[in-house]
């Protein structure tokens, strides 16, 4: 179709190409003619640019099925006048596609087992990847939705007191306002205080609220959490005002309008509801249900003895480094006097001793994945796990792809004859390539459908495992699905490319003589791929075993106290003056062995206040940070802790109010040779007036009060002063009856909700994230082995089939069944052995790095590698031997007849 009319004013050539490629020959001439005619008229009327644009627009409008549809007689016409209708030599994709699809369906249907193995393997891989992608994308999305996310920072506090670095997620309460005052680059600050649990009363109903925050009034302007009711400028300005999340508002007030209604919050008094905000999105680093106004709580004015989570919004164009540089100025300006007051030393002397104090700033978007400070608002994620999961997802996808390619190659090998026949009948190479590619793409899309079904089935389980609430909608909505479709197409094209290009280049004469399969049989590539698969499988298996070993180690290790059979009653302070009588009454019950009143328990979310401790040893003074517990005289015996030296608190010693117990870690940290009788000075809020001196009367053997990720920290125990929890050592013969009795007693005394827990359960929550990792690894290991074995199954079936004749000959010549099975197995065993050799050092190295996070950890012993390798080998043998035995048992007469 050469252009005779060549004017400089032409329609865009590429648009013409599209048109010529797309529009059916019997229409093309007239359509294109009309378009051109209209174009030249347009040029005269509205100018070239506009006309060209309209031309493209008109071409795009022609891209509809109507214009693409061929007519039957196109082919006939093409034969009559091939130079005009080149439809025959250039197969038009729509028509051929339907033909390819028909043949592809027939082929896939004919080899059902092969199709099933291949698509199920890929589907499992794809489903896993989809789930992991959901998880990873969610982890990466934390706090990115705030409209100023990139200018939003959290102010953190970093101290070094006597050899120990402590980094807090919060900072001093006056720091935020001071920053706003002193530094031009700061546009706004907002603060958040978490004062723990509150009993919230709505008239007669009382709920325990664990997620209560006190925030500055601009909180909802800085974080993009929509206010559904109330005015952005006026909510939370006054003391004793409250903003509820939608769900909480519904919980307290049902359908009624909550604005102006009141709730009583703990002992803080009655709060008026001034606003309702949307529920906090799951991808945020804090989750609160009630927001009280900041002025509702006593505000700390000291820099060293008050804390709030402070968020800083920078002005556009200012960098956080400038603010950070200034924070040293804060130290001199605001904190020097407090250091003097608190520690009795000047700032220069304080710094000279190697102590440090300063503020840091972290982008809010990095908090969830990168921040691991003391007193985080909630347990954060970890970028390491994001990486690990991404890598595992890629590995599993790789496994599935290798399988898919392997099986596609193998599956198409039997079709060399078909290729020969097709070629003889006049097929050209491009048509054969298209045929094979269509088949493999069809198979991948089938796998994708299966994968979506699988995801639907396992999503609830996955949510439970990953601690998330994903819905299918999230997969369908985002570009996750389009990503999956594109991935599938790529896999399909890649996997199909080998058979497509190799097979289609066969010469029909050699193929039809039956000489073609030699090229496919060599299979070193296949062997390499199988080895690769098993390397990954064995690696993941090793990781699983190590992770579970570590988990069991942490759960079984002696924690230094008896965590079994300890019942904990919460919020006992609401009993007020009746508390002692209540305690005495419980103590009289036959199922209660021992009872202790203390807010401080060695597990999970329990309180452990961290104080600056000052030790005066003669003239020398040193500062330490130490965790402190407030306990009674029954504490040690109730929890089964051991004294290493000295004595326990006792009512018999009235002076015990100024006595303390230390743990062994504290003794070591303070450098006491003879701890009993040592004097320790402690300041409460930093003032001289609150300074107290205590005498050490005993040393408690070290016990684990935190996760074993951390080394046991120095701990100091004070006598009395906390009434928030009762710990009961109980006999476990009839726990439910005991609980009912206690609950009845509780209800009789107070109208507040009755809450309890068991200490060992609380202890297990310490290892929730490790448990999660262990389980996930287990699932992945299972999947990896499953996918590898599916691949192996297909391969084994193929190779044994290929060797049917050989096996028949061997049997006729006297080979035994075991001999033949051995023959078929050895090749695979060799591959697995190589995989073991490659996988062991890599997995060992990676898991050693992981274990490095734990202060108390296992060593990786040799049997773990053997076990992982053994497991993989066993499964592989089971997979292959079915085929092998079947082949070996076959009647040689039959097998020799196969060709």
């Amino acid at each position, binding site marked *: 179709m050469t*252009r*005779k*009319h060549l004017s400089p004013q032409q329609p865009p050539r590429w648009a013409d190409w599209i048109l010529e490629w797309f529009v059916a020959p019997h*229409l093309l*001439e*007239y*359509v*294109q*003619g*009309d*378009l*051109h*005619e*209209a174009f*030249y*008229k347009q040029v005269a009327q509205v100018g070239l640019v506009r006309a060209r644009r309209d031309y493209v*627009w*008109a071409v795009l*409008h*022609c891209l*509809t099925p*109507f*214009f693409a549809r061929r007519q039957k007689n196109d082919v006939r016409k093409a034969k009559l006048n091939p130079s005009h209708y080149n439809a025959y030599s250039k197969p038009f994709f729509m028509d051929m596609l339907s033909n390819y699809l028909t043949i592809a369906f027939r082929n896939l249907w004919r080899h059902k087992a092969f199709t099933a193995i291949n698509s199920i393997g890929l589907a499992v891989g794809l489903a896993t990847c989809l789930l992991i992608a959901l998880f990873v994308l969610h982890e990466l999305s934390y706090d990115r939705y705030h409209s100023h996310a990139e200018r939003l920072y959290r102010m953190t506090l970093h101290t070094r007191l006597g050899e120990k670095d402590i980094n807090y997620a919060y900072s001093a309460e006056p720091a935020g306002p001071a920053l706003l005052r002193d530094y031009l680059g700061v546009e706004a600050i907002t603060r958040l205080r978490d004062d723990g649990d509150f009993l919230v009363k709505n008239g007669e109903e009382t709920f325990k609220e664990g997620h209560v925050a006190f925030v500055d009034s601009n909180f909802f302007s800085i974080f993009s959490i929509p206010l559904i009711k109330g005015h952005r400028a006026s909510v939370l300005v006054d003391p004793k005002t409250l903003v509820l999340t939608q769900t909480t508002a519904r919980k307290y007030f049902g359908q009624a309008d909550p604005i102006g209604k009141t709730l009583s919050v703990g002992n803080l008094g009655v709060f008026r509801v001034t606003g309702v905000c949307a529920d906090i999105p799951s991808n945020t680093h804090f989750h609160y249900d009630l927001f009280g106004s900041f002025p509702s709580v006593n505000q700390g004015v000291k820099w060293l003895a008050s804390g709030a989570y402070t968020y800083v919004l920078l002005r556009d164009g200012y960098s956080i480094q400038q603010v950070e540089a200034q924070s040293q100025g804060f130290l001199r300006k605001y904190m020097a006097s407090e250091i003097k007051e608190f520690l009795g030393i000047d700032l220069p002397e304080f710094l000279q001793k190697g102590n440090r104090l300063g503020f840091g700033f972290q982008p809010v978007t990095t908090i969830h994945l990168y921040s691991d400070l003391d007193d985080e608002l909630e347990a954060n994620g970890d970028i390491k796990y994001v990486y690990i999961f991404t890598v595992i997802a890629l590995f599993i996808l790789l496994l599935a792809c290798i399988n898919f390619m392997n099986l596609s190659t193998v599956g198409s090998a039997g079709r060399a004859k078909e290729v020969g026949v097709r070629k003889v009948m006049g097929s050209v190479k491009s048509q054969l390539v298209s045929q094979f590619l269509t088949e493999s793409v069809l198979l991948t899309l089938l796998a994708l459908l299966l994968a979506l079904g699988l995801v639907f089935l396992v999503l609830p389980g996955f949510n439970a495992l990953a601690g998330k609430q994903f819905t299918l909608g999230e997969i369908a909505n985002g570009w996750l699905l389009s990503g999956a479709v594109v991935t599938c197409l790529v896999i399909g094209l890649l996997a199909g490319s080998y058979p497509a290009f190799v097979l289609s280049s066969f010469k029909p004469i050699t193929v039809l003589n039956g000489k073609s399969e030699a090229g496919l049989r060599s299979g070193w590539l296949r062997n390499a791929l199988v080895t690769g698969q098993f390397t990954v499988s064995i690696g993941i298996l090793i990781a699983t075993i190590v992770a579970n070993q570590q988990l069991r180690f942490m759960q079984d290790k002696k924690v230094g106290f008896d965590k079994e059979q300890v019942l904990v009653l919460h919020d006992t302070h609401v009993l007020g003056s009746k508390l002692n009588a209540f305690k005495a009454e419980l103590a009289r019950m036959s199922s209660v062995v021992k009872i202790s009143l203390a807010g401080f328990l060695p597990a999970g979310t329990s309180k452990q206040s961290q104080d600056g401790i000052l030790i005066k040893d003669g003239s020398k003074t040193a500062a330490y940070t130490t965790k402190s517990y407030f306990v009674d005289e029954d504490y040690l015996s109730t929890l089964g802790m051991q004294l290493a030296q000295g004595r326990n608190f006792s009512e018999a010693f009235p002076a015990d109010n100024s006595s303390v117990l230390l743990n062994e870690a504290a003794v070591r940290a303070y450098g006491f040779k003879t701890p009993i009788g040592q004097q320790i000075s402690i300041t409460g809020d930093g003032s001289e007036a609150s300074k107290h001196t205590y005498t050490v009367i005993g040393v408690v053997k070290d016990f684990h009060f935190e996760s074993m990720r951390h080394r046991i920290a120095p701990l100091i125990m004070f006598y009395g002063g906390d009434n928030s929890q009762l710990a009961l050592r109980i006999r476990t013969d009839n726990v439910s009856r005991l609980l009912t009795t206690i609950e009845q007693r509780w209800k009789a005394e107070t109208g507040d909700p009755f809450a309890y827990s068991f200490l060992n359960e609380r202890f297990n929550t310490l290892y929730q994230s490790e448990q999660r990792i262990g389980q996930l690894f287990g699932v992945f290991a299972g999947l990896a082995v499953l996918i590898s074995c599916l691949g192996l199954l297909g391969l084994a079936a193929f190779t044994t089939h290929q060797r049917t004749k050989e096996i028949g000959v061997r049997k006729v010549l006297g080979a035994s069944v075991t001999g033949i099975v051995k023959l078929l197995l050895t090749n695979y065993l060799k591959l697995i052995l190589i995989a073991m050799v490659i996988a062991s050092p890599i997995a060992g190295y990676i898991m050693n790095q992981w274990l490095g996070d734990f202060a108390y950890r296992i060593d990786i012993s040799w049997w773990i590698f053997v076990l992982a390798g053994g497991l993989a080998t066993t499964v592989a043998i089971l997979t292959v031997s079915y085929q092998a035995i079947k082949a070996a048992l076959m009647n040689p007469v039959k097998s020799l007849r196969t060709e």
Partner: protein
Amino acid sequence: MKKTILGELEELVLLVVAASTDDVYGVPVMEQLQLQTGRSFTISAVHTTLYRLEEKGFLSSSVGGATAERGGRSKRLFVLTAEGGRVLVDIQQMRTRLWQSIPQSKLQLLGL
């Protein structure tokens, strides 16, 4: 007579073809449509409709002369078939009947 059901565009195109005294092919039909209705039509819509009408037997086509401004490509020229003419008359009559069935009083009420 199932085939007498015509879409609005089909009817318009059929009328344009019927009314035209010159050669009828894509471009003039499109121009006439734009001129008469004030709406813009793409060449693809016009073509689709022309071919559909031909399939229904209301138009017949032949290959016509090529001109330079078409890059030497020939035209597909359409003419109204007898059946096409009958359909147009049917439609016209049906419309007239419907119009006549509107009571005068109503028309007056509407100010028509």
